[in-house]
């Protein structure tokens, strides 16, 4: 009896002790920023391979690219690891000079050798983002002749043609142009892999933070870089927690267990708006939401039908209800913020006009068509809203749901009727989108290059030539005009119903300041965060 009572009181005491932390406010440490994000898309931390949203942001905060731009004003390009550059008279060679007296997080000095090594390595490894450098005429075979060190702090970057200087510079702001620590990486080289096996899960950069640890589907931990050449960040640590459920993120944010929630839905945003402890920060991203209309479909290949489809989307309502706070209406293939972007939106829901167009095409009674739809809540909701407005003109839209892989595989094989998708630009130059929405060098089924225009079987030899020409135009104003013309043409005639541009939303605790949400994910910056 005595023993059991003792045990019982001990158990009660333990319970009370255990309960105490739950009673106190679960505040995050003052020098640590904790974020909840769905980070399951990370497959590598190697800048030569990173092509996904979340690792791009981590690389943006831990590596330095050769060149950077102001996320608030994209046209303001400046050197990051490079101090200056000159363009040769024939426009085919850029000569870079590196910033002096700077070191990597490891303590090794940053020299031109590292910059050349990083670029050559990226081209030789030939991972998904390698085309960003490769499109400038640099291949794994010729890279050692094209990117050449000319002194301890200088190197030449040669191309096969005189590409527009802004295109080249924006390519060198991409994650793939991050400068990696040659000495450190080569210590871990195995069988001539340029340290690829090691860098996949490790870090060799010079940014404000270092990547300390990555536990897949659990967390990424970043720490302040003591050797960073710029102002030391206020935060000693940034922790990304993998929390896929948006409702959970919201609850954690409300309780103060995290500082920033990254995947809030429109519903969450509306619910948190009145909460004084939380503020909603946002930034316009470059990603576009669009429908791809396969031109192999007998109905969708009619120009009147393509136009009618554009009058049957209720752009404003989708942006104001289902996607409130997460998108803005945008209809041109260059997102707002890009050189030459067309920001007026000529189309709106107009059922009568659409019916007239369909009658012109001989389809007054409408038709039935399928749409491959990724089964995420937002995409499904938008698809259903479109299904309703299309039905008003007699177009019966059948939604075929599938996971991202299924729908994308079908789309890439161009076996769809309509595909509802999201497209993110790969770098900040207009060519990145023009080369996919308005470029289709070969419309054959076995074509080597498969841009979005190819995926929708849109045969456009003239437009392809224009895109090629714009790539080489040196005069920025002339170049912008060329892209404006292309966008207007695609808007009127193209098989793309572009309907929205993404707005990235971050729900933050009220005491968090200084997060920069840039136009692309590697521009999201935490170096200036305080709390």
């Amino acid at each position, binding site marked *: 009896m005595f023993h059991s009572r003792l045990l019982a009181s001990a158990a009660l005491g333990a319970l009370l002790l255990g309960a105490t932390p739950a009673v106190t406010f679960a505040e995050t440490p003052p020098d640590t920023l904790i974020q909840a994000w769905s980070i399951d898309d990370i497959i590598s931390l190697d800048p030569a391979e990173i092509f996904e949203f979340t690792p791009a942001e981590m690389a943006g905060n831990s590596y330095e690219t050769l060149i950077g731009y102001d996320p608030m004003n994209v046209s303001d390009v400046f050197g990051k690891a490079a101090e200056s550059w000159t363009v040769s008279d024939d426009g085919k060679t850029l000569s870079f000079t590196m910033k002096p007296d700077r070191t990597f997080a490891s303590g090794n000095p940053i020299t031109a050798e590292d910059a050349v090594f990083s670029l050559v390595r990226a081209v030789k490894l030939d991972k998904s983002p390698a085309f960003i450098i490769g499109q400038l005429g640099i291949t794994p075979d010729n890279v050692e002749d094209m990117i050449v060190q000319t002194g301890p702090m200088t190197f030449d970057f040669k191309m096969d043609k005189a590409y527009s200087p802004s295109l080249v510079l924006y390519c060198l702001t991409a994650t793939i142009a991050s400068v990696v620590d040659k000495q450190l990486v080569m210590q871990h080289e195995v069988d001539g892999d340029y340290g690829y096996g090691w860098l996949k899960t490790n870090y060799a950069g010079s940014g404000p933070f270092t990547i300390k640890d990555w536990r897949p589907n659990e967390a990424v931990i970043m720490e302040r870089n003591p050797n960073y050449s710029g102002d030391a960040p206020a935060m000693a640590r940034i922790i990304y927690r993998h929390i896929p459920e948006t*409702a959970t993120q919201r609850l954690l944010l409300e309780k103060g267990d995290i500082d920033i929630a990254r995947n809030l839905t429109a519903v969450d945003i509306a*619910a948190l708006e009145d909460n004084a402890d939380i503020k909603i920060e946002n930034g316009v991203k470059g990603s576009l939401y669009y429908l791809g209309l396969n031109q192999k479909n007998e109905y969708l290949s009619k120009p009147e039908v393509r136009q009618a489809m554009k009058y049957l989307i209720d752009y404003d309502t989708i942006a104001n209800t289902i996607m409130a706070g997460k998108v803005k209406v945008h209809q041109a293939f260059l997102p707002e913020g890009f050189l030459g972007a067309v920001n007026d939106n000529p189309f709106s829901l107009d059922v009568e006009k659409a019916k007239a167009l369909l009658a012109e095409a001989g389809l007054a009674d409408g038709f039935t068509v399928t749409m491959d739809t990724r*089964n995420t809540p937002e995409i499904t909701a938008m698809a259903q809203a479109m299904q309703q407005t299309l039905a008003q003109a007699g177009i019966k839209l059948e939604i075929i749901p599938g996971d991202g892989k299924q729908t994308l595989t079908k789309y890439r094989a161009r076996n769809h009727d309509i595909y509802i998708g999201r497209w993110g630009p790969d770098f900040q130059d207009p060519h990145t989108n023009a080369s996919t929405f308005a470029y289709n060098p070969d419309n054959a089924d076995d074509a080597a290059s498969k841009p979005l225009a190819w995926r929708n079987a849109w045969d456009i030899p003239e437009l392809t030539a224009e895109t090629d020409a714009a790539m080489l135009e040196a005069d920025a104003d002339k170049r912008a005009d060329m892209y404006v013309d292309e966008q207007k043409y695609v808007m009127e005639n193209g098989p793309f119903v572009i309907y929205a541009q993404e707005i990235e939303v971050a729900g933050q605790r009220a005491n968090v300041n200084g997060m920069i949400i840039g136009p692309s994910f590697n521009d999201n910056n935490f170096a200036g965060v305080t709390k």
Partner: protein
Amino acid sequence: MTTTRDWLLSDRPASRRQAKLGQSYRTWLDFRTNALAFLGLLIVVALVLMAIFAPWLAPHDPLVGDLNHTRLLPPLTEGYWLGTDDQGRDILSRLIYGSRITLAVVALVAVIATPVGLLVGTTAGYFGGWVDTVLMRITDIVLAFPKLILALAFVAALGPGIENAIIAISITAWPPYARLARAETLTIRNSDFIAATKLQGASSLRIIWKHIVPLCMSSVIIRVTLDMAGIILTAAGLGFLGLGAQPPQPEWGAMIAGGRNFLVDYWWVAAMPGMAIFIVSLGFNLLGDGLRDVLDPKRQK
């Protein structure tokens, strides 16, 4: 009125018809005394009526909503008594139309799975030997898989859609009926009346169909009624996983899946179809229980 009643309850029926009707009437009287079973019957009848008269009962179009004005209205809003969903559609109207899908699934599965189960079970039981072994091992194999998982696999192979969901559920639903029918058959296959029929030269098919199947029917019907709740849940489960009815069809499981994203702030979008599934499943279960009580010949009176 009393004369009809007396005629029905007569203990000396003058014709076969009178005897049959009298038997049915007695069963009905028996059934009516069970309040819970009667409640189950009422729910099921209400479901059937709702499905038949859906276009007259539903206050709004189940497929078209107004995103700008009627989105996510709470329950008890005038004109939208159960609230509206994220597409601005009236949940009550969707539930009413959804009853057609639910009922169609239940009816079709019963129509497809029951005969298959009966046929396999009675054949195996009647012939015995290697026929029995082969058929029952096949049944065992199907039984060895969890129902929903097997249905998932079939739908994944056939492609999502309500028709394929019905086929998939039917494929997984027949083995218990086969088991049951076989057990019943084993108890009667050696009876004298079967032997007598055999001596008269009746074919196996005739014996199974005319003499064995009718005797298995009552226990199978009870089992089917009790399984209906399970069938509804499986169909809703497939709908919830996006493999059953496709949008914009107002299938209840799919409606819950759609409402799940709003659970924290707009509970009714998922709760209302959940309630509907709950009530209908309960109705079928109560009805099945009641039927078992009155139809079981071995039950003590």
